[in-house]
């Protein structure tokens, strides 16, 4: 049974057609990357899969249930999303900002228990943020704040994680470290991320979806989808493939 599937999905935002008639079956253990030019609708697609943007047509099913039949809380227990931008405008400590990941599991009169705090602390530890625990997130750098958000996602611990450009703001050391951590943590679950770095995608993902910008899409196993021909079609520039230490790398001409 697929964890997440969409059938005949049409999505648009403004005048951009993100996809038309998109059908995907995504299973536990897979990690998907969605690639496309700026403005091709990667973020909109992620938001739609999380139920935060309405599709024009078609349906999304979370396990077997249609997304619109689930409450926000029920969705949040199964599916987490890492946004590209951070809207927090009031001061808040790193621990508080991580602990909100437990919100979907708490009843409306419940407060976070010591176990919840421990889960948050464990996640902070995994991202190397323990020493920042009591700092205000506004005193952190963009990359550190990004890692706090990822710690929050680990605290939420959903079966499906949608990541909007998870490598954004991170230096290459933390890119590799964070993506390694995420693929380990979601090893038997489903990862679905948008990205710009094709070589990072081929290194960490098993499946790919290309948004061509006119509503057309190409999807499938990463080795079938990521080819110079497809990437040239996607980005409109010529691309070379080189092999280094048994890895295929794609670099623009």
């Amino acid at each position, binding site marked *: 049974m697929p964890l997440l599937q969409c059938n005949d999905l049409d999505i648009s935002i403004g005048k951009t057609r993100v996809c038309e008639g998109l059908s995907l079956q995504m299973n536990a253990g897979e990690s998907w990357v969605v690639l496309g030019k700026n403005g091709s609708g990667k973020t909109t697609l992620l*938001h739609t899969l*999380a139920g*935060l943007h309405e599709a024009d047509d078609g349906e999304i099913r979370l396990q077997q249930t249609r997304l619109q039949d689930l*409450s*926000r*809380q*029920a*969705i*949040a*227990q199964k599916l*987490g*999303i890492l*946004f590209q931008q*951070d*809207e*927090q*405008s*009031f*001061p*808040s*400590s790193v621990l*508080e*900002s991580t602990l*909100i*990941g437990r*919100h*979907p599991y*708490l009843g*409306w*009169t419940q*407060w976070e228990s010591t176990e919840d705090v421990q889960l948050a602390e464990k996640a902070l530890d995994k991202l190397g943020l323990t020493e920042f625990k009591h700092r205000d997130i506004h005193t952190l750098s963009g990359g550190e704040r990004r890692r706090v958000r990822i710690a929050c996602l680990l605290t*939420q611990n959903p079966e499906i994680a949608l990541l909007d450009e998870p490598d954004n703001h991170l230096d290459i050391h933390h890119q590799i470290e964070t993506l390694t951590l995420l693929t380990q943590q979601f090893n038997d679950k489903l990862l679905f991320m948008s990205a710009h770095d094709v070589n990072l995608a081929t290194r960490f993902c098993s499946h790919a979806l290309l948004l061509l910008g006119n509503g057309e899409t190409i999807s499938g196993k990463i080795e079938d989808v990521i080819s110079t021909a497809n990437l040239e079609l996607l980005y409109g520039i010529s691309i070379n493939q080189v092999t280094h230490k048994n890895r295929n790398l794609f670099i623009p001409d």
Partner: protein
Amino acid sequence: MNRIQISLTLLLACLCSFALAISMGSTALSLNEIVSSFTGTQGLPHTLIFELRLPRAFLAFICGGMLALAGLLMQALLRNPLADPYILGISGGAATGALLAILFGMGTLFIQTAAFAGALLSIMLVFALAHSHSSWTSNRLLLTGVVLAAGWNAIISFLLSVSQSQQVHGMLFWLMGDLSFNHLSYWETPLLAVITLLCFIFSRHLNLMSRGELQAAALGVNTRQVRLVLFATASLLTAVAISLAGSIGFIGLMAPHLLRLVTGSDHRALVPMSVLLGGTLLVLADTIARTALAPAQLPVGVLTAMIGVPTFLYLLYRKN
């Protein structure tokens, strides 16, 4: 300071403000007289305390608490640190109603009713205008409110300019906030208590809302519903407070921010503490307003600003 210390300090400050409020005034009362008036039922001190000073202190406390809580909710709703209870133009609508009532020479009860009606009208206008599109974002709400507030201000200026000079004095007092013309009836205190309790219970939702609606929705908050409830609750509190005491500035902006500077942004602490601090500040301000230049009374809004601005600036810069 941890939360318990801050709460105790606030409680103590609150008690002190009440003590000051009942002992200070045209006739200063000694500790002895105050104690005996609580045990006896006769005499001038008893009348002064139980018929004049204590009711007025309670009125100030409830209005201050309502304004502070309304400000806190507006800030969570609009995610804007500059949001106060009046940012959506509620005070403009209320002021227009009240000024019209004063212009036509009506009594206190009519002024209060007109202010409340004006506030409700303004709330419904903002809501209808901002809601007409399917997406009802905070920014849209904020802009609609700010533009409407500007419109109300123009009407207020017009009313002030066409009124006779003896009416203008009363109007200015109303515009700057004045606790001398009104008293609490039976329902305002329970209303504030119930709303405070509900906000406290739902404070985890408030924490998430203040982090952005997308983030809140992604973590399981039904943002559409919560947004509507927040808007309605904050508006109701503001409308009640303003119809009781005129538009008192600063409390709604300052109390939540002062507390954020010392306790952080967790609404579990902010909700009860804001009510306590807002109430205490207004009791203090009102006590000074009626005693500083006695027998003349100052508009309490002048005092809230004079106490609030330096305190706020001090805390802001000490933090940096």
